[in-house]
């Protein structure tokens, strides 16, 4: 550059500088602050209707650089309120007569435009240290109405967006504002408000930036009654918004930070004390966006919304409704590591109240997307993928069962649209869910289809459950111990599951129980291992409709059961199928059907009995009647069919075990049917079949036990049977009272006929032993009827004869037993008869001298004491003996009698004493045995014998010769004792006894009595 040019430019610049300095000095000298202040105050009266004061107005070059401007200081607007306010809103925004006060207000103007065409264009505005008090009274008066109304009536430009905006800066620093609108019930107060706004708009392109900060914002809104609808107190709010670009692609970022605050709606606080105490930012937004302002759409990228430190990142597009297009979103969201316990503590009281009763914790992560439009009944579809890590759940209702180590992964699709297609319902898929509690762990996988309406659950539950952990779910008197492995599949509506409507639930699975121990007040069951297969609804036969909905198939190695008092049972290889209706349905009686099979069962009760069986098969059912608490059978109404092989039953008092080789038994409360029972007991064997009725009533002492049983045996020990049956059904206390009242020794243990029993045994016994006698072909009926045992015309044979016995035995008192016999022995060997029944020798002493066969009829009764000793005062009997071709054994007494009667050649040729026929009737009354006169044919002699003896052996007999070769009638009296009789001749008295035409009254009466006795006896012969 040439030096001349250089010098020229410097000179020009200096001149311009000097010109500018001169202008500035001139302006300062002309537009002095006092002059400008005066001008401003004068102009203010024209434009401001209230009192307005400008403390100092000066020109500003540097404050508004590069624009020239005015600086107004100490600006005050005073507009007193017309009425004294009395609302509590003034606690937030007190009334004041000063509308506004500004310490410094700088306005930068476009000087060029002003000089060019006189237009006033504000380029900058900066307000510092000001305050404002806005007040609107209840009748609508506002202290802000202080500006004079414009006379410019041209409104053509209003409402039109300017084509160009170039805003260098609007800044506000340290502005405090109060607003009280009594008409709206609103009061607000902002402290230390500051913001900066700059930007521009030109040719459909915008560029702007807003920064706002606020130390405190207090706002209250009340209703007409004065109740607070809104009460907000926010601290440290910072907002930053910038954007640039064309209107259809405006890029920018919104940042918002709110450090702390309180918010109440309708008196309910929504920011809790724990939230405020957490010292976390109450709200934080960082939203980068690309906006299409024309179409009201925006795309977010890595936007983060954070509330109290819990962040949610958003990506995607959002379109606001316009031109009939609804709000549309296609947004993904993600959140990570939310601390549930802390989050729950931040919940407002209303929501926290709904969560009362449980504490939860864990780390929650979720992600998903929201796609769809909003409006006209449509809502977007929300997809969510939820992860829960190290979760815990503590329910107040189950304090003993806290869940911990919860790990969950859930995917959900939520379609909230009212017109959602059935093909796209909301669903929830549990990819994995596991939890632990105590010593138990459970995992669940599955899905819930149509989550918003039908909620169809299809899940699989697996886990290991320590049965102790179930105590909270069980009745207090039921204790479970052991371990179980659960594998259960469930298909049901969720509502059916929660309402336990089991009849509409499908489920099946297995339950493996180890070291099971079940304890109730009256039952203890244990098993080392059991497998339970559950099925809901119950498996059922197609031909058998049933209301059962649950079935369980239980198998295992063995099962031990102890029932109070001291009943123990052990079941080997149990195979039990139980089915029952809905146990939770209170409308249905508790019932169950049971099919049981086990390879071996052993049971014992104290020292009373023990039983063992090989194979047991049982089918039955129970149905509980709650009203029948006192009677076990009525309460449960059991029905059972039992089929078992080889049952062994033993008891301490039994020398031999009872063994049932087979036992098929049908039990119903009204009737028990023994279809087949083969019993071996010692040397005895029994076959039993028949029915017993009224067991239920009998056990409750309200009815008789009745029945008819066929009782067969090849060999039976009747004494053994009687010992077992003794006292069955009798009231033990009553027996003991009788024993005490009668002072009966405990050694006495007589057979007590069962009470309240009416049983008939149709017996057929090949051989038996009874009271030490061997009997054969025993057939007839044995009846036990209410304390009376009856052997009804029982026929049998022994070594001596065919027999027929009708026996009657009662036990009204333990020391007063009744025994009655109707005994007929046909074709009897007399010596065997005496051997079998030695008492007959007492009744008819002379019978011991006879040999041969005869018929014997005896009907007798006697009461016995507790030791079976007869009470002789009650002995009453009658006997008849007939025989023919008998032989009388010779002895000294007979020889003495024959000698006195002058009998010659009365023996037969072989030396024996033969008797053609014999017919004796005898009667027993107490100790007296009366033998009615009977005839003896001895060869060519005929004797009549009669008399009486007593049980203490005193005798008084008369033998009279009725027929002999000699014309004499001799008689012999036998007195004294039977052992040492005094035999001497006596007077005849039977001479006319068998001559009807010559009988006297005594003889007639004697024969009538004899006939009466015999006819009564023979009437019972079958």
């Amino acid at each position, binding site marked *: 550059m040439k030096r001349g040019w250089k010098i020229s430019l410097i000179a020009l610049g200096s001149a311009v500088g000097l010109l500018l300095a001169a202008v500035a000095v001139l302006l300062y000298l002309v537009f002095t602050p006092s002059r400008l202040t005066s001008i401003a105050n004068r102009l203010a009266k024209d434009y401001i209707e209230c009192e307005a004061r400008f403390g100092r107005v000066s020109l500003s070059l540097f404050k508004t650089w590069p624009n020239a401007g005015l600086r107004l200081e100490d600006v005050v607007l005073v507009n007193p309120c017309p009425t004294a306010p009395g609302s509590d809103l003034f606690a937030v925004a007190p009334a004041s007569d000063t509308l506004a006060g500004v310490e410094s207000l700088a306005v930068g103007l476009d000087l060029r435009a002003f000089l060019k065409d006189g237009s006033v264009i504000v380029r900058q505005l900066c307000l510092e240290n000001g305050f404002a008090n806005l007040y609107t009274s209840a009748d609508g008066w506002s202290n802000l109405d202080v500006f004079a109304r414009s006379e410019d009536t041209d409104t053509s430009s209003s409402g039109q967006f300017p084509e160009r905006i170039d805003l260098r800066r609007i800044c506000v620093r340290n502005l405090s504002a109060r607003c009280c609108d009594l008409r709206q019930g609103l009061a607000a107060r902002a402290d230390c408000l500051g913001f900066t706004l700059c930007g521009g708009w030109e040719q459909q392109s915008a560029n702007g930036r807003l920064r706002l900060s606020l130390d405190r914002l207090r706002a209250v809104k009340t209703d007409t009654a004065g109740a607070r609808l809104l009460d907000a107190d926010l601290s440290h709010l910072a907002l930053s918004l910038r954007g640039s670009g064309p209107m259809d692609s405006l890029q920018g970022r919104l940042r918002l930070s709110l450090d702390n605050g309180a918010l109440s709606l309708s008196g309910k606080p929504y920011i809790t004390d724990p939230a405020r105490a957490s010292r976390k930012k109450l709200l934080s937004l960082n939203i980068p966006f690309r906006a299409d302002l024309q179409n009201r759409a925006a795309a977010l990228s890595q936007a983060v919304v954070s509330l109290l430190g819990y962040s949610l990142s958003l990506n995607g597009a959002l379109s606001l409704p316009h031109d009939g297009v609804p709000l549309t979103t296609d947004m993904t969201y993600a959140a990570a590591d939310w601390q549930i316990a802390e989050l729950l503590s931040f919940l407002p009281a209303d929501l926290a109240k709904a969560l009362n009763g449980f504490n939860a914790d864990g780390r929650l992560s979720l992600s998903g997307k929201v796609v769809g439009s909003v409006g006209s009944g449509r809502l977007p579809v929300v997809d969510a993928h939820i992860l829960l890590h190290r979760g815990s759940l503590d329910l107040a209702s189950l304090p003993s069962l806290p869940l911990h180590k919860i790990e969950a992964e859930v995917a959900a699709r939520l379609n909230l649209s009212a017109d959602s297609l059935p093909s796209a319902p909301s669903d929830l898929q549990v990819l994995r869910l596991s939890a632990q509690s105590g010593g138990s762990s459970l995992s669940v996988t599955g899905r819930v289809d149509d989550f918003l309406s039908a909620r169809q659950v299809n899940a699989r539950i697996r886990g290991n459950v320590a049965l102790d952990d179930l105590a909270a779910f069980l009745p207090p008197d039921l204790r479970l111990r052991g371990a179980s492995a659960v594998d259960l599949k469930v298909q049901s509506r969720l509502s059916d599951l929660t309402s336990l409507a089991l009849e509409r639930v499908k489920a099946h699975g297995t339950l493996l129980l180890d070291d099971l121990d079940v304890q109730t007040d009256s039952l203890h069951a244990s098993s080392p291992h059991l497998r339970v297969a559950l099925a809901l609804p119950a498996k059922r036969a197609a031909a058998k409709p049933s209301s059962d909905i649950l079935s369980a198939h239980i198998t295992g190695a063995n099962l031990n059961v102890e029932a109070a008092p001291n009943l123990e049972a052990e079941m080997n290889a149990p195979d039990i199928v139980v089915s029952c209706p809905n146990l939770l349905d209170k409308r249905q009686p508790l019932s169950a059907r049971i099919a049981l099979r086990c390879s071996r069962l052993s049971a014992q009760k104290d020292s009373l009995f023990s039983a063992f069986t090989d194979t047991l098969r049982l089918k039955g059912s129970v149905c509980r009647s709650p009203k029948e608490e006192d009677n076990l059978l009525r309460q449960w109404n059991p029905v059972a069919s039992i089929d078992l092989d080889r049952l062994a039953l033993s008891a301490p008092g039994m020398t031999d075990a009872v063994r049932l080789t087979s036992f098929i038994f049908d039990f119903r409360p009204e009737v028990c049917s023994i279809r087949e029972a083969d019993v071996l007991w010692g040397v005895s064997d029994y076959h039993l079949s028949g029915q017993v009725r009224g067991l239920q009533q009998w056990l409750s002492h309200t009815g008789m036990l009745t029945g008819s049983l066929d009782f067969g045996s090849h060999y039976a020990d009747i004494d053994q049977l009687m010992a077992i049956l003794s006292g069955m059904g009798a009231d033990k206390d009553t027996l003991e009272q009788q024993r005490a009242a009668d002072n009966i020794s405990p050694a006495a243990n007589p057979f007590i006929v069962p009470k309240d029993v009416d049983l008939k045994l149709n017996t057929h016994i090949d051989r038996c032993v009874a009271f030490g006698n061997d009997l054969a072909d025993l057939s007839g009926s044995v009846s036990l009827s209410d304390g009376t045992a009856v052997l009804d015309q029982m026929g049998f044979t022994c070594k001596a004869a065919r027999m027929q016995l009708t026996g009657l035995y009662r036990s009204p008192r333990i020391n007063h037993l009744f025994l009655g016999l109707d005994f007929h022995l046909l074709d009897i060997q007399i010596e065997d008869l005496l051997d079998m029944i030695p008492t007959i020798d007492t009744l008819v002493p002379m019978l011991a001298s006879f040999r041969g066969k005869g018929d014997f009829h005896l*009907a007798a009764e006697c009461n016995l004491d507790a030791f079976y000793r007869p009470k002789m005062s009650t002995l009453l009997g009658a006997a008849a003996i007939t025989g023919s071709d008998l032989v009388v054994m010779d002895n000294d007494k007979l020889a003495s009698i024959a000698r006195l009667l002058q009998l010659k050649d009365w023996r037969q040729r072989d030396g024996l004493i033969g008797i053609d026929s014999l017919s004796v009737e005898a009667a027993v009354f107490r100790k007296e045995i009366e033998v009615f006169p009977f005839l003896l044919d001895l060869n060519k002699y005929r004797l009549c014998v009669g008399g009486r003896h007593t049980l203490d052996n005193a005798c008084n007999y008369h033998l009279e010769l009725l027929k002999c070769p000699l014309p004499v009638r001799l008689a012999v009296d036998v007195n004294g004792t039977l052992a040492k009789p005094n035999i001497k001749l006596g007077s005849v008295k039977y001479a006319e006894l068998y001559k009807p035409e010559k009988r006297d009254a005594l003889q007639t009466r004697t024969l009538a009595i004899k006939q009466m006795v015999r006819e009564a006896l023979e009437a019972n012969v079958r």
Partner: protein
Amino acid sequence: MKTKGLIRLLLVAAVFFIMAGCAKEPATDVDEDLLAGRWKQVGTEECWRFDSSHEGETWDLSDDVQEGEGIKFTWTVAGAELTCVMRGQMGQVVPKVYTVTTLNAALLVWNDDYGNVKTFNRI
């Protein structure tokens, strides 16, 4: 000598008949109304009850047999003869015939065909 012997025989016969006549109590007709009631044998616990319906019962307290537990019978009287027909529960019939020698409000005496005498007091 023969005369003395005959006299001795006659004396013996007379004494025999006199003694025989004195040995037996004279039989008395039984008054059924007097008989009805409970009687207890002297020196024992054996009891009898005669009902006016001609039924009765006998029991022995020394055997721990109480009234109601004893032997039931029906009774008839013919002159001095009292017939008790014991009917057992097994169908047996045992008639007993007694000759009443004394019967008044307090005392009952009977004997049987063998001369056994039983004396009862009313209870």
